[in-house]
């Protein structure tokens, strides 16, 4: 009998050879080139689009198809610029998080050149996984991809700004998350408590 865990594991894309597939969204040509390279160097598969509309199209969420099968989910992480003409990154974030399907489980990271606390807070409140200040650095991307690969969980406690991130692991975990990022986890029970002690401690020391 399938557990809810197994169902989710089947629906979300298994990472090819431990490779994250990242969808990057930015209206700036320069920034698209940079983020693509940052992600490729960090061993990710990358798809880059220039608008929120195109991102939704790529994900199959633009309402064009009548029935979106769960197997059409293709990405493990979405990184979006905040300020874009048309649909902002914030609006894209909201649209994804409002989905009543596996799509809302895809972590979304917002990038912005502007360090505006209210902006950061509203993104985090809408469910953004993280908020990165531009220009995004290699160390930012490495930290982020490591975090997602290790089965990053959503922090439900007080969210801090990027640079003053707390070290504490959130005690209430999104189990869907541990499932997303551990397709190779052979144990049938998907909760975090089954992780080895070393994985747990490395989680605590990161971020």
């Amino acid at each position: 009998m399938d557990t809810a865990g197994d169902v989710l594991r089947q629906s979300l894309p298994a990472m090819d050879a431990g490779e994250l597939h990242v969808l990057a969204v930015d209206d700036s040509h320069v920034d698209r080139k940079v983020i693509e390279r940052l992600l490729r160097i960090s061993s990710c598969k990358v798809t880059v689009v220039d608008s929120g509309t195109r991102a939704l199209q790529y994900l199959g969420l633009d309402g064009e198809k009548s029935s979106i099968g769960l197997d059409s989910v293709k990405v493990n992480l979405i990184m979006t610029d905040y300020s874009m003409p048309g649909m902002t990154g914030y609006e894209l974030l909201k649209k994804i998080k409002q989905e009543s399907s596996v799509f809302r489980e895809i972590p979304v990271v917002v990038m912005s050149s502007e360090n505006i606390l209210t902006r950061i807070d509203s993104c985090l409140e809408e469910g953004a996984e993280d908020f990165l200040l531009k220009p995004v650095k290699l160390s930012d991307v490495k930290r982020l991809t490591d975090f997602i690969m290790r089965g990053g969980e959503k922090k439900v406690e007080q969210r801090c700004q990027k640079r003053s991130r707390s070290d504490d692991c959130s005690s209430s975990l999104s189990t869907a998350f541990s499932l997303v990022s551990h397709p190779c986890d052979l144990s049938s029970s998907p909760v975090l408590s089954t992780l080895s002690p070393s994985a747990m401690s490395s989680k605590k020391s990161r971020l």
Partner: protein
Amino acid sequence: MDGGIIQPQRHLVDYTASLFDEGFLDEQFNQLELLQDESNPDFVVEVVTLFFQDAERLLDELTKALGQASIDFKKLDAHVHQLKGSSSSVGAQRVHKACISFRNSCEEKNIEGCLKSLQQVRHEYSLVKSKLETLFKMEQQLSAASGSFSR
């Protein structure tokens, strides 16, 4: 002997250092260099070229927008924001700073200020463009001369 590349190599290092010392470039430029390797040997030139294209387009748009009878400050600000972003992404620090003050003038709906800022941004852009082109030329000459010694 490799005497033929020591001088040019030194020259390149000094020139690059001066660009940082004089504030034309900042740490982000170094970040871009980290992304360049044998598999992507022209990455920095490619990104900077995109920046040049972007900047020229935006400077044209800004000139046009400031030439209107009735100035749309929101549109103006949007263009400056874009230029601010791409200059920041390549480490063109002085252009980036000039854009910040341009945005302030937009916010204040200060036409005089905007005109001055546009002039300043244009000036900084043409400076950094010529310096980066010089830098790339030096790198090209060095790599042609040194073959296996090139970065």
